[in-house]
Each structure stands twice: as structure tokens, then as C-alpha cells.
């Protein structure tokens, strides 16, 4: 085993040990009566709650609601943003007119607009999807805008000389260029999408992970609150890891070019 590998394993070991120590200490302190279970709960109780959710099937409708809201908003938002980004990139006049306003909107945390969305779309899943769309659309828009602008002008000139029509330019140059950036934008947006959906559920909902969590908070049930948070974070983490592997495979062509002769 190489030194680096040994060091890596030792580090991972140290980290795992640290996590387990904290969890064990927490569990132990509660059982020994030093910490109040009603207040901070304990890892065992949280795990038991999650297990109960799965075993009784209580989790699935709520998980489904949150995932639906997040994914629907993600797809709609990225699609809308990408289309607008493409439009702005190909019509410079529009870009000049709109970009400052869009940049300002992008800098504003869109969560603040949720009450307006709730006012217009009610308290059901529609307002959650709309919130996710407003958050994610900007990622899509600016990603595509940058991607199209970043296409090397020499490449564009070359393809034009080869006699490509506008449709061919779109198909062979602009769309492939943007698709890769979209894949990267997807990872960023995924986290935002779930956060948006859950925050929307915190503010008013009848189902979803956020509903479970906020309900548990109102009833002062820390185990349930933490169980919900653990499920939410595990979900986001798992999806992100999956996307990371996909992203690595799709962007094989973006390696640093070699520089020898």
C-alpha cells in the first residue's frame, strides 16, 4: 500500500471515528440523563423514527410530494431558463436591455417572493413548483447565456465557412455547447430545487417532507424533526452523488488540452 493510500485511509478512519464518537457520546449522555431526550432526542430515537416511517409506509406519500415538487420545478425551471438564455444569447439587443434587471433579480434570494406565489397559486403543490422554477430558471438562464457566449468565435467562423445554415449552427455548435453546461448547472440546481420545495412546505402545506418537519416542530417532537431532516439531506446527497458520476462521464471532452507540439 502506498504512503498516500495509507494516509488517505488513516484520515478516513479518523473522520469516521470522530463521527461515531460524537454520536455515541450523544446517545450515552441522553441515556445517562445528562441531556434531556425531550429536548435534543438521541440518535437511536431518530433512527427508530425513520425506520417506523419506512415500515408503516408513512414516509412515501410525503417523500413523493417533495420529490415531485422539486423535480417538476427543476425540469420546468431549467427548461424555461435555458430557452430564455438561448434567446438572449442569440439576440444581443434583448440581452443588453434585460441583463441588468435579470442580474438584480438573480442577486435577490427568490425565496422572498414565495408569499406572492402563495397568493397567486394557493397553498398546494403549484406554489412550491413555482418557487423552485423561479430559483432554478436563473441558473439555467445564466448558464446557457455564458455557454453560448463562451463558444470560441473561431469555431463559429469555421462552421460558418463550411456552409452551415442557422439550424445547423444550432444543432452542431450552440446546443452541444450549452448541454454540457446544463449538466453542470443541474447539480447546483438540484440542491436549490429541494430546498425550495421544502421551504415552501414549511410555510404552508398539507404534505411533503417539509410538512412532516414543521408539524413535528409545532408539536415539539425533536426526534421527528431530526428524522425528517436526515431523510431530506440523505436524499439530496444521494442525488448529487449520482449526478456527479454522470457529469464526469459526459464532460470527457472538457479535459485540459495538452500543450506539446
Amino acid at each position, binding site marked *: 500500500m502506498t504512503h498516500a493510500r495509507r494516509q488517505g485511509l488513516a484520515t478516513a478512519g479518523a473522520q469516521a471515528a470522530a463521527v461515531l464518537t460524537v454520536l455515541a457520546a450523544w446517545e450515552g449522555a441522553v441515556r445517562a440523563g445528562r441531556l434531556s431526550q425531550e429536548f435534543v432526542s438521541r440518535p437511536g430515537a431518530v433512527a427508530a423514527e425513520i425506520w417506523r416511517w419506512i415500515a408503516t409506509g408513512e414516509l412515501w406519500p410525503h417523500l413523493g410530494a417533495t420529490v415531485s415538487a422539486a423535480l417538476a420545478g427543476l425540469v420546468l425551471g431549467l427548461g424555461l431558463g435555458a430557452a430564455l438564455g438561448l434567446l438572449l444569447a442569440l439576440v444581443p439587443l434583448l440581452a443588453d436591455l434585460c441583463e441588468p434587471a435579470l442580474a438584480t433579480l438573480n442577486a435577490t434570494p427568490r425565496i422572498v417572493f414565495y408569499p406572492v406565489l402563495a397568493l397567486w397559486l394557493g397553498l398546494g403543490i403549484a406554489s412550491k413548483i413555482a418557487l423552485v422554477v423561479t430559483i432554478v430558471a436563473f441558473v439555467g438562464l445564466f448558464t446557457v447565456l455564458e455557454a453560448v457566449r463562451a463558444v*470560441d468565435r*473561431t*469555431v463559429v*467562423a*469555421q*462552421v*460558418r*465557412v*463550411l*456552409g*452551415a445554415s442557422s439550424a*445547423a449552427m444550432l444543432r*452542431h*455548435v450552440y446546443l*452541444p*455547447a450549452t448541454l*454540457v453546461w446544463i449538466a453542470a448547472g443541474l447539480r447546483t440546481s438540484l440542491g436549490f430545487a429541494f430546498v425550495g420545495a421544502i421551504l415552501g412546505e414549511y410555510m404552508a402545506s398539507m404534505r411533503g417532507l417539509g410538512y412532516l418537519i414543521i408539524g413535528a416542530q409545532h408539536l415539539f417532537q425533536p426526534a421527528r424533526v431530526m428524522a425528517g431532516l436526515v431523510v431530506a439531506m440523505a436524499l439530496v446527497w444521494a442525488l448529487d452523488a449520482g449526478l456527479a458520476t454522470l457529469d464526469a462521464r459526459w464532460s*470527457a*471532452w*472538457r*479535459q*485540459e*488540452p*495538452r*500543450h*506539446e*507540439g
Partner: protein
Amino acid sequence: MRVEVSAPALPVAAPAGDDRGVPAVEVVRLTRTFAGTGTAVPALVDVSFTVAPGEFVSVVGPSGCGKSTLLHLICGLLRPSQGEVRIFGTPAGRVQPGRIGYVFQRDALLPWKTALDNVALPLLLRGTPPARARQTARAWMHRVGLAGFEHHYPSQLSGGMRKRVALAMTMVYHPALILMDEPFAALDVQTRNLMENELLALWAQTASTILFVTHDLEEAIALADRVVVLTRRPGRVKAIYTVDLPRPRDVTEVRGSEAFVATYRRIWADLRDEVLAAHGHA
């Protein structure tokens, strides 16, 4: 060895023995001015010369003399302010895309397509069925010595390999006229020499007309039948020299010959004044 200098600003007759009819490129009193903030900046003024079909002509001049602008005007990417450009008799703006090829100095390969797909692209754009386009592209990759690298992306290839893909991409659709804008400038010297020889070999096979822009006078002479010398900005034709060296040539060997050296000296005398003037010396 015969060296002819023609008077500037007059169309040059085709080299002796060549009477194949319509010239490949006719540049007649070409002028191009760019509008700046306020004043107009002339890039080329009153440029005239002719290129016969199948010829290899180099264009040299100091930096900024408008060599790239000249190529852009010839292939129709820019329109002349005054004068005309004709490609095989047709005005430059109206030439069908299939007749002209352009090799850029900087990397013009589509980075998200494999080498094979890059070479196949011109054929796909012309409506060739994808299977046949790929087959032809594969043959060309073999021809430029890149068999086995079909599924590499440009970022996975060295600079010289990328240039070879660019050459294959240009020649795969057999353009009658190929414009080259300092294509090898970014390569190291050894790779450059290799590419120059490969270019000559490919040219011998395809019989295209080549107009080759470079700032390297040695390269210009080693490759070409004739050398056009442009003045500093605004570019005019200072002189046109015929290069009377035998073919086939090896660019490294031919550089040592007496004929080459003598030609170099004659042309450099003209070019040097322009380069010095461009840098602000008398």
C-alpha cells in the same frame, strides 16, 4: 533561377505555361476600410493579384498588414469596401460553401465532437448520409496519419494532431480553393516542418488551389509557387515573386539549397523595409 518582380497595383499575369482558363482567385483593386470611433481605418488598399487553379501562393507581410482581412474578404466572411474578388469567376459573396476551405490559425475544431465527427461534419452539412460521411472521414484520418484516434476529443490530442484533424476536416469535401491563415504558427518548429511536408503531400494528391498566409518568409518560399509581399498597414501589394524551386520538395532540405537562399535574400530585401517601417523605424 528566375525571379520576376511585377509592378505593384497591376493584375499579375498567370505564370508562363498556365492557361487553364478561369483563374481560381481574382482580386481586383480590393480595398477594405473599417469604421472605428470617428475615423475610418483602412486595412487594405487597392490590392490586386490573380491565382491560377492548382497554384500554391503564399502571402507575406508585417504584422497588421491585413493578411487575415484579405482571406476573410476572399472567402466572403467580409465584404469589400471597394473593388472585387472573384472565385472561379463568381463574386466572393456568392460562392457556394463547398468550393472554399479555410484553415484557421487558432483551434477551430468543435471541442464537444470527437476527431472523427469533426472531420465528418462538412460532409454532414452537405447532406451526406451519416454512415458514408463517417466512412469518408475515417479514410481521411488515416490519410493524415491519425488512424486509431478517431474517438479522441480535441482536448485529448496534441497541437500537431489537432492541426492534422483540421487539415483532414478541410480537405474531406475537396474544396477547389483552400485558404490558410498562418495555420502552423502556434506549433513548435519541428512539428511545423512535419506539417508543412504533409501539407505539400496532401496538396499534390488533391490538386486544390492554396492561398497560404504567413509571417514566416522561409515557410512562404519553401511551400509556394509564388509569393505575394504586402506592405505594412494599410496593406498594398508591394511585389509578387515567382519561386522557381523543383517539386516535390522537402521543406527542411530545400532550405539549404542555393536557389532558396538567393530567393530568400531578394524577397527579404523588400519585406524588411516594411517590417521595420511597421515597427516605427525609418
